[in-house]
């Protein structure tokens, strides 16, 4: 037995792996994910096959709706807004652009009117031909020139309508996405620190682009086509009320078809999109983790994983395909059928003298003109629906409640004190049990303890990221949670291991905390303090060199120095360093000791330490065990106490 064996810490609950026997599966390879009965079987009589297909279609519907439900109520992600919220949001966006809207509607109606005049003129000509009008030959040139003139006007009006549409759509879209990013930048700190960013990334990429397609295309198209369809109906009626009936019947048929389709399409397309992002994330893991797969011999497993993803995706594709097919079955009749009815009604009407041949011609031309816009209208609704779903997710970001209410209190000094701190991630499960801690300004305090003891949580309370359930953390007498965020940043900062370099200039990357006030000299001083000025000045454009993804690449050490320089500029009097996630990554840290120590000099430092030498160097050490501070004192005092810390230290140095 070695010395370290005695280090099993009391207070650390002995884990028994609850339900291990119940949840372990002996055949993990049987995870098929797709119900075998969904696999198409091309045998049996037509009726049987149809019944089987309907059963499969229903199963696929359930699967799609389950995906939709999951997306609408994300388990761990951000909230989703209601449809009412989206409409209200759209109303405010549209209301501020009233003049554009009016111009858009006016021009689109004028263009539609122009488009309807031409067939009327042609219909008139046909009537005069059949009527044997002798003056026709002489007036034909004039009539045709007039018609050509109308066509010209229609062309110009169409151009203007489309142009205004584009301007309007792009304007709407850019406002919406900028608003989304502003909301993201207002997310409460505690939320940003605890929740992963995966959900947010999906929202700012996939959902924004779905919203884009709706705003850029669907919304303006909708405005123009609705007008066009309505006016065409009016024109049809003016041409001949009798010959309008076929169109109305066709539209009624279309209405019911499309309504059924739209009712199910959303879930279908959401599930389809979801299946492709699963394919994509599995593939991303396989490609980026190709070395791990190679090392562990997982090539077949990973290929299998992708095959399974594809199976799921194929089912969603089959579902939306069937939905569209069901719609097409009646949609083509709704589009083409009226023409047939025009033949029948036209024959009866012409015989009875109710309609002229010209009116029949006009009705046929109008019908043909109507198919395009109606088709567009259906697609528009389809896309608008998907865009709507995405917008609910985007507006949901704004529904995260703010976590701090500025109290107006001002810190008297830089003395940080925690009193009776309790905190629970889940209700009823406190991870801290009334911790008291009084930091001496300028001291270096190391917190050590086993994983799960609550030391990271303590660090986050001390940095003002989360508010304690009971008690409070104060700086100079003012509660940290009562300080506005930009004020808090000047008091205390949590130092994390962010390799992240933003897309922007080096200066942009450094001035963060004082983005409006920091001078160029201060940036240089901060860079010099972390030994980074030399390489920055060697760069082609110095501190205005663009860095970040797609620009000049920084090495991990340079990225770390940039991160340190950010803190120098922020200049908080207290730093909380969590070693698990902090800059002291053993790989890089050894190169950065000098940069680091110049940052720490003159500040109060709370180091959540994994490495014992960090603890040894500290003025005081707090040993946190099971949510309490078990030992507190200098290295020598704790060695004399001969408790947990002393045992660990001896194992470390012997």
């Amino acid at each position, binding site marked *: 037995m070695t010395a370290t064996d005695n280090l099993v810490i009391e207070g650390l609950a002995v884990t028994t792996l609850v339900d291990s026997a119940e949840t372990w599966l002996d055949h993990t390879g049987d995870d098929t994910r797709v119900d075998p009965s969904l696999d198409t079987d091309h045998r049996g009589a037509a009726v049987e096959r149809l019944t089987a297909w309907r059963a499969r279609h229903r199963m696929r519907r359930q699967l799609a709706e389950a995906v939709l439900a999951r997306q609408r109520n994300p388990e761990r992600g951000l909230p989703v807004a209601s449809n009412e919220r989206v409409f209200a949001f759209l109303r405010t966006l549209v209301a501020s652009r009233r003049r554009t809207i009016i111009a858009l509607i006016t021009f689109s109606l004028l263009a539609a009117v122009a488009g309807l005049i031409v067939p009327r003129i042609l219909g008139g000509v046909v009537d005069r031909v059949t009527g044997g009008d002798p003056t026709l030959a002489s007036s034909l040139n004039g009539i045709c020139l007039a018609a050509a003139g109308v066509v010209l006007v229609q062309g110009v009006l169409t151009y203007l309508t489309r142009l205004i549409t584009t301007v309007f759509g*792009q304007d709407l879209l850019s406002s919406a996405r900028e608003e989304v990013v502003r909301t993201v930048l207002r997310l409460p700190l505690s939320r940003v620190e605890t929740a992963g960013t995966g959900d947010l990334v999906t929202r700012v990429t996939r959902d924004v682009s779905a919203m884009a397609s709706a705003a850029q295309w669907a919304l303006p198209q909708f405005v123009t086509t609705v007008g066009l369809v309505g006016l065409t109906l009016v024109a049809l009626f003016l041409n001949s009320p009798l010959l309008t009936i076929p169109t109305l019947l066709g539209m009624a048929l279309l209405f019911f078809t499309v309504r059924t389709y739209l009712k199910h399409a959303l879930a279908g397309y959401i599930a389809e999109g979801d299946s492709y992002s699963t394919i994509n994330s599995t593939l991303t*893991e396989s490609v980026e983790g190709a070395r791990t797969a190679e090392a*562990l011999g997982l090539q077949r497993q990973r290929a299998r994983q992708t095959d399974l993803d594809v199976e799921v995706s194929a089912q969603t594709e089959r579902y939306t395909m069937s939905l569209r097919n069901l719609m097409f079955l009646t949609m083509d009749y709704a589009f083409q059928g009226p023409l047939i009815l025009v033949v029948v009604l036209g024959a009866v009407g012409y015989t009875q003298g109710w309609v002229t041949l010209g009116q029949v011609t006009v009705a046929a031309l109008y019908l043909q003109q109507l198919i395009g816009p109606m088709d567009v209208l259906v697609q528009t609704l389809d896309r608008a629906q998907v865009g709507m779903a995405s917008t609910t997710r985007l507006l949901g970001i704004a529904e995260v409640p703010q976590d701090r209410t500025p109290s107006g209190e001002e810190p008297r000094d830089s003395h940080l004190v925690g009193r009776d701190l309790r905190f629970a991630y889940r209700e009823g499960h406190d991870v801290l049990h009334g911790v008291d801690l009084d930091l001496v300004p300028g001291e270096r305090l190391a917190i*050590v303890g086993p994983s799960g003891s609550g030391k990271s949580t303590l660090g986050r309370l001390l940095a003002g990221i989360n508010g304690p359930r009971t008690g409070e953390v104060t700086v100079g007498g003012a509660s940290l949670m009562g300080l506005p965020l930009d004020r808090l940043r000047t008091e205390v900062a949590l130092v994390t291991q962010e390799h992240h370099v933003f897309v922007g200039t080096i200066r942009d990357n450094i001035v963060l905390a004082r983005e409006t006030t920091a001078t160029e000299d201060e940036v240089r001083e901060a860079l010099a303090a972390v030994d980074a000025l030399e390489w920055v000045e060697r760069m082609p454009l110095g501190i205005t060199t663009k860095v970040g993804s797609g620009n000049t690449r920084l090495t991990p050490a340079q990225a770390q120095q940039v991160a340190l320089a950010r803190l120098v500029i922020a200049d908080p009097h207290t730093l909380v360093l969590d070693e698990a996630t902090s800059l002291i990554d053993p790989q890089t840290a050894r190169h950065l000791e000098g940069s680091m120590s110049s940052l720490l000099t003159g500040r109060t430092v709370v180091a959540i330490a994994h490495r014992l030498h960090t603890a040894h160097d500290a003025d005081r050490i707090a040993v946190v065990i099971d949510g309490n501070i078990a030992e507190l004192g200098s290295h020598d005092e704790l060695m004399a106490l001969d408790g947990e810390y002393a045992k660990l230290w001896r194992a470390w140095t012997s």
Partner: protein
Amino acid sequence: METFPPRIHAYGLPSVAANPTPRPLPTADERPDVRSPLRFLLWFLGRQWKILVLSALSSVLWFGSSAITPWMFGRAVDTGIGQRDLPAALGWAGWMLLAVSIGVFFGVFGHTIVVAGWVVSIYRTVGLISRRALSMGHVLPRRTPTGEVLSVAGGDADTFGATQEVLTRAIGAVSAFIFVTVLVLGESPKLGLVVLVAAPLLVGAAAPFLRPLQAARTKERTRSSELTGMATDIVAGLRILRGIGGEKTFGDNYVRQSQHVRRAGVEAGAWQSAVDALATLLGGLLLVLLTWLGVREVLAGALSVGQLISFFGYAVYLVWPVYTMYEFVQKWVQGLVAAKKTVVVLGQSAPWKAGTDTVELPRDAVIKDEQSTFLAQPGQLTVVVSSLPDDSAALADRIGRYLTGSEDPVSHEIDENLKGRAAKRARAEKAAELAALAQADEERANRPWGVTYDGIDVSRFDLAEFRRRVLVSDTSAMIFAGTLQQLVDPLGRATREQAEEALRVASAEDVYDLVPGGWQGRIDERGRGLSGGQRQRLVLARALLADPEVLVMVEPTSAVDAHTEARIATRLAEARRGRTTIITTVSPLVLHVADEVVFMVDGVCVERGTHHDLMQHSPAYRSVVERGIDDDPAAIEHPLRDHALLPTPSGAVQDHS
């Protein structure tokens, strides 16, 4: 007919049918023709020729049925309505109904086939890319940026779908055009000629606008993807932005770029509006021209009213097949571009030669590395301490036969502004660069490696066999999404007791407790939501459960606190007793349990012994271990040496739960 999803068997990785299916699985590799983009595209389309034929056929019938409707309407007017002949009109109405019904049938059938063809294209590309990447392992990311590999599966797969769809539609369009030509020339040669000439002109008239439109669209797309990049960037760095500040700077940057995108979008939209307006204008003018000519014909008695009405229909109808042809040309070019990018990825291969004269890897071998003079005794726990962590990581790669090197992978994206010859030259340079990289790998992989097992050079072992028996777990080890059980026992070979033991040794029981659902609890991709230490301990448990004869681990406990690390060290030594284990670390808690410690300075082993001995006799060693950082002359001398080699410690990235 091949239905979807397709079963892909390629690069030695077979297809897995999840369900019992009447379709037989392929038994041999499919071999994409990667000699040129065109050959690849043809090979790709050839793989689904049955779908192509069927959808071309249904598109011909669908186009045909709609092409005949205007003619029928004209006949109905002439012989039915115009003659006040109700039965004749009803007869024509019946024929029209039949034509519409045939159209509906082939529309639905064709749509089904087209969807099948489209998604088969996507799924095939995904299957091929995934298998190519997996079969090449760590070599592919060295050569091609992973983003470009993924964009083939994400974007180009869809382009192949679009290419094959438009190909079949083009076939239908051509046949419809010929059909209508025959019809109209038969009715009235004069008007027929006008229609036939006008339709292509109508489409062609837009051509001058199309180039600026394309350019504007490209600009919009580029700017828009930059914008998405900025949003992702903001989210990725949100902890910093909210923790330290900078919301205004980056919020403003985003707004500025968003306005750039808006302007580009408006510009593209303006060109598009011109194209649309032109189509309206020319279509209308054609209609007027036909009326003018047609009425004169009718007055001269050469044409009936019904025929004139039919011509109105054709004039509108013919735009469609012509437009389809035009679309085909565009999409075919895009298909070739996509094929070019795909061929870059699929055209590569792993550098290892399948040796015929392989030697069996000896059991319990003494492992020696020439470059560093490192030596590990069989069955022992050897710990490598290095003043520079890069050196020990490189040693681990050599022992495990992984290619290392600091070259950046070759991106095939060229500057958007390069055109014509300059673009061609840039592309050729990239291709040459990639070829050079591949050749260097090949050369390195096939000469003696410089690491021996019982005196036999590593290059003489069968690589697959070698990987099975020697496992290197490096700092970039990926955590794949799945259940906890799949994560720690991905091959499904362990018993529950072994898995529990592995969790215990790695002190990862808390992760088990954290994830609801026990062994079936879900772990997100890359272990998102777990802390760095938790991820590291899961990776450790997985490596231990794989139970390789030789286990090499790089900094396996760097993100774990001292208490837990002490526990892991003891249990690890116990669990690996009697099996060769090599660990690189500077933590004394691990060094304590080592059978032998090897001390490396500047990539060369300078001392060896027990931790206790070295602590007593080697001041240099003592300083590296105790302080890790201070008094380290090497680190001070080259503070920024070779950072490109630094593996990103995936275990140390964010996400605290």
